[in-house]
């Protein structure tokens, strides 16, 4: 029979990617009350930036990751400033539609230079697997798990101890309250988008060697990240991470022990189940009466 540990490890590896995607979604949602449907395309953009830096500019692998993260962050800030700020006070359905429009636009733009071929993003390591305690795992997966874990810690520290992190938290809890204590909420929005986009871009660079590189590569990851975020309650950073891991593992266990036919959608079954039993997600607090 199929090895449970092997499935768990593979599930955690995939889940760490979903977690990173979910993180970006949750950050935007917490500050702007909107699900960013263009987040998959931010991931795609990050992957293409990293790819271009590596193959065309011949930057070392690590530096192309840095370039992707920085330019991805810039892209996020620009999206907020140019496309989002002027409509930020509109109904959230309108905002969601704006993000859908952005998604279509970004895919369209990416197809101009990259639409005629599927590109390959080289993995970070030459070896295609290592065997730990008898379980085969690819170094790329180890890197992804490590990235997700360290990003989670870094984010925790960022929100806890830095001025910008505190301002972001304040703005997430009440925008007017943040304005009343002199926070430049415009900057906070832009920074939040930048941060979410940086995480998205990093996820893109990590995902690309697994998924290949094409303008529509983001869609699938967005769905899984969305599932993870819903599981985590959509307002919780640790929830997003745990949600990501759960989606990854559930997929593997379902595919491994039940059937591969519904493997891709199994995570969504779980979500429906969780939402049925616990409507606020695993980490969601009951909506607090705003003070």
């Amino acid at each position: 029979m199929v090895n449970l540990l092997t499935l768990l490890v593979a599930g955690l590896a995939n889940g760490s990617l979903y977690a990173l995607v979910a993180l970006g979604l949750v950050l935007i949602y917490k500050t702007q009350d909107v699900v960013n449907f263009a987040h998959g395309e931010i991931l795609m953009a990050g992957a293409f930036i990293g790819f271009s830096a590596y193959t065309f500019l011949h930057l070392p692998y690590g530096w192309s990751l840095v370039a992707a993260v920085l330019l991805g962050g810039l892209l996020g800030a620009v999206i907020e400033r140019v496309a989002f700020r002027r409509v930020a006070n509109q109904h959230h359905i309108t905002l969601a539609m704006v993000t859908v429009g952005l998604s279509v636009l970004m895919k369209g733009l990416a197809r101009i230079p990259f639409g005629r071929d599927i590109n390959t993003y080289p993995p970070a390591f030459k070896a295609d697997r290592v065997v730990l305690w008898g379980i085969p795992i690819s170094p790329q997966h180890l890197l992804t798990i490590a990235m997700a874990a360290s990003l989670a810690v870094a984010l925790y520290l960022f929100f806890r101890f830095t001025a910008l992190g505190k301002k972001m938290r304040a703005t997430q809890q009440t925008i007017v309250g943040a304005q009343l204590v002199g926070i430049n909420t415009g900057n906070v929005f832009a920074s939040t988008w930048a941060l979410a986009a940086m995480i998205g871009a990093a996820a893109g660079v990590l995902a690309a060697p697994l998924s290949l590189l094409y303008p529509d590569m983001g869609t699938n990851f967005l769905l899984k990240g969305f599932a993870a975020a819903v599981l985590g309650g959509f307002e919780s950073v640790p929830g997003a991470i745990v949600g990501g891991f759960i989606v990854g593992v559930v997929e593997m266990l379902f595919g491994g022990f039940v059937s591969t036919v519904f493997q891709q959608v199994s995570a969504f079954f779980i979500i429906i189940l969780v939402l049925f039993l616990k409507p606020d997600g695993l980490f969601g607090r009951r909506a607090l009466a705003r003070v």
Partner: protein
Amino acid sequence: MKRYRILPTSALALCAALALMGARAAPAAAEEGVTADTIRVGMFGPLTGPVSIYGYPINDGALAVYKATNDAGGINGRKIEVIQEDDACDPAKSRAAVKKLISRDHVFAIHGGSCSGATFATRDTMIDEEVPFMVMAATLDKISLPVNRYVYTTTPPGTSDGAEIVRFIRSMPNVKRVGIVRHVDEWANAKMESINASLEQPGLTVVANEVLDRNATDATTQVLHLKAAKPDVVIFVTYPAEGAVFLRDARKYDLAGPFIGTNGVTDLLDLAQRAGGLNAATDVYATAFVAGPVGSPAMAASTALLKKYYPDDRPQSVSFYGMSGAYAVVDALRRAGPNLTRKAFLDALESTKNLPAGPAFCKINITPENHQGCLAQQMWTLRDGKIVALGETWSPTNPTN
């Protein structure tokens, strides 16, 4: 007062009508889409959306053939004028695109369709409107079957590709247990239909049948299931990206081949590269509709042609999928003679015999009873980092069809 105005108005209308009629009547040809010096051909395919990745290369290959034909003087004094429409691989859009080509652009014939579902959706329109239709690269059998006077293809349909794969497996010694990993969509289902049918005959048993979703980035469960089933051979009916994911994970979890792919993964070197290098694609085979790997002497002429008209396109197998149909169309137009009518063109198509198919391995043969003009394929594998066609151990079907 009013009465007097009628006269000048009607006169004007009459003049206008005459002028219009004159304009339409002037060229010698009376057939839709044909003028004294042009033949208008409609083309459609996925130029937007996810599948545009294949849409452009495929259409560009066909366009290159038409452009070359024009540059060589055209056909019986006429130049081919192609009007391209986007179907985004969507049946609703392909139907609309075809309607537009027929009723607004008044095309003479249509050469297009690279997605099975979207192309099949246009079959009835073509037949109802009596527009000659050459399928571009879609492989779904029911697009070209049952035989209809107006519908033709020079791409091996899915069932023949599937049958070819099983035929190859049967030629392998000591193979009894077959594992399968496949997508679930029209493209894969067509191939699976014939694979399943052929496997039902005694001698082979299916020991695992796994689904890999489109856009999957992981094949762990599929590989583990296959491994547990201990197959002698694994058939993978997937697109290249997912095929690469599968082979990568097969290697990761020590699942041994041989792995047999469809002509969807003909570009074995690409497949190997995407799967993580040549090591990841040992013992991998795929059917091949084109005459040779990209870069081989067999493809030199076609590659040069593509490069001439589309220098920015990276030559890959799909770049050559649209060419054979274009050659069939050009050949039939030529044989239909200077007095070009749809009837003459269809008659010419139905008498296509041993026509070289450009970059395709087959020779094109079409008769009134058979409109699938190109069934012969090769079986390819990788040896020493190069694609080779199997010859000694495996004899391909008769290249004349």
